[in-house]
């Protein structure tokens, strides 16, 4: 049984002064997330990510299609006990303290007084704002509110968490903390479904990702399938090499960039056997600075799929294009 599944989920909003004009924010989204998976939901602004998450949380209602969470239809109260949700740019009650807010939310799950306080205390420590537990939320910075938002989302030890832009408003340390938290949640067996603009986070955390563009699913799959391990070339940096030696390499290098006197960056084709070239150059007196494989990044993959004309058409093959493979 998938942790989360959507079936042709579609959402139209009525826009215009008389609300007569329909605007399709989400076109027939079908996806499935396995238990224990960390799933990234990527897409540019206005792609329909937040609409999808709001549909799952029943903050908006679908025009057509359906979805299931933990095998139950949306709106089932028993499911809400087993999931957590962090909205985008969370905002809470100005005059409550962080501890009171979490105690309040814990009460809605039916936890007893002692359990409520213990959970609030533990989670505020876990998200790094334990020292500010008795400060009113109106005095919190955006990043601190984001941490409170994350704490309230995992208050009930959920089986599935849905995070809408969890890194938003966080400084580099905060982002590192949230990344570790997501990994800890995964280690506990929790399924994590999060939307993000930050591709490096998705690359570091996700088992699978889906890319949404203009309300349509543009691509979905495992990162290892999307971004092949095989290198598209090599980037070799050498020092102490003579200019005429580089010129003599001819078509063995795709591009040579002179960084400084005797210091070159060489772009090698994938089948160039870089170890042999390194041997030849070092035998001639050069020294190796670095040698790195060139692989397609998630950012390149994302840009390719989001800007592709098909992104505006019907959902297409979920595999990366064969033509881009080395």
């Amino acid at each position, binding site marked *: 049984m998938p942790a989360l599944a959507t079936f042709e989920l579609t959402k139209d909003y009525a826009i215009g002064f008389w609300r007569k004009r329909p605007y399709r924010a989400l076109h027939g989204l079908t996806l499935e997330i396995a238990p224990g998976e960390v799933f990234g939901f990527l897409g540019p602004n206005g792609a329909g990510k937040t609409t999808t998450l709001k549909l799952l949380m029943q903050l*908006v209602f679908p025009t057509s299609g359906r979805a299931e969470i933990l095998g139950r239809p949306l709106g089932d109260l028993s499911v809400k006990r087993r999931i957590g949700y962090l909205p985008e740019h969370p*905002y809470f*009650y100005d*005059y409550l303290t962080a501890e009171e807010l979490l105690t309040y939310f814990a009460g*809605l799950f039916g936890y007893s007084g002692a359990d409520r306080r213990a959970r609030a205390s533990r989670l505020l420590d876990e998200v790094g704002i334990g020292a500010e537990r008795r400060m009113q939320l109106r005095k919190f910075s955006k990043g601190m509110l984001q941490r409170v938002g994350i704490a309230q989302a995992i208050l009930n030890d959920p089986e599935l968490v849905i995070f809408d832009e969890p890194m938003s408003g966080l400084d580099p340390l905060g982002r590192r903390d949230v990344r570790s938290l997501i990994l800890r949640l995964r280690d506990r067996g929790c399924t994590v479904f999060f939307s993000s603009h930050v591709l490096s986070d998705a690359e570091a955390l996700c088992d699978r990702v889906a890319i949404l563009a203009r309300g349509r699913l543009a691509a979905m799959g495992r990162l290892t399938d999307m971004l092949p391990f095989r290198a598209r070339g090599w980037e070799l940096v050498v020092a102490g090499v003579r200019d005429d030696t580089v010129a003599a390499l001819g078509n063995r290098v795709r591009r040579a960039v002179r960084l400084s006197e005797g210091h070159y960056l060489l772009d090698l084709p994938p089948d160039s056997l870089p170890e042999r070239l390194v041997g030849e150059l070092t035998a001639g007196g050069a020294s190796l600075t670095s040698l790195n494989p060139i692989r397609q990044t998630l950012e390149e993959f994302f840009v390719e799929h989001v800007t592709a004309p098909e992104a505006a058409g019907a959902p297409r093959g979920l595999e990366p294009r064969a033509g881009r493979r080395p």
Partner: protein
Amino acid sequence: MKATAWIAINVFRESVRDKVLYNLVFFAILLIAASYLIGQLTAGQDVKIIKDLGLAATSIFGLFIAVFIGIGLVSKEVERRSVYSLLAKPIHRYQLLIGKYCGLVLTLVVNISIMAAALYVVLAYMSWGVSPAAARIWDAPALDPALLKAASLLLAELSIVTAIALFFSTFSTPMLSAAMTFGLYIVGHFTNDLRNFADLVDSPAAARLARGLSWALPNLAQFDVRADVVHGVPVAFGYMGLACLYAAVYVAMLLAISVLVFSRRDFK
């Protein structure tokens, strides 16, 4: 039920920390205390003036609390998106709405009690040391328990106003909700005139419209017994019971409509 009560307690807790509330209560108490000075300017009517001004201040500031905090219950919560985290918890939307309503009514009960207590303190100070002969010219005793009847009916009236504010805030912006609630409050004090108007007009369509509106709009004038209490005219418990029943039915209907609107609302 438990979740609803928990939401109500939280609304109360947040409301009593709101500086707007403190300011309103402070000014109400200041006005009640100032009525003592104004009472000094009148000959033999001081107790009556203090009661009149005191009850008026309680009514006006109670109205401000009901409207300004009432509209914030839902519309501000939606505007600031704090409702997103709340609705992700295992609660129904109707529980959120009813819990918020009960929380504000609880806030009103506490605040009106404080204002009524302040009025009794001023009246006690005023009547302290007054000879029984001098007190005999008053229409009603200074510490008349009937003041509590006026305060109770005011609370019933404000519970309707709160339900109106809540209803508008389920689909409208805070500013518009406040304007419409104040508008209905004013109209609500003239529904009897609307009924009389229906009897006077020649056009049957206009009469039907006026009569229909007079039944649909809240009749808030019936809750105003200030003049009776101040002049020592008795207010029957039967009358109070009927007025409270009317308030309960009206509030229940408004909450039911609010729940219907709120349950299908998209939070974009």
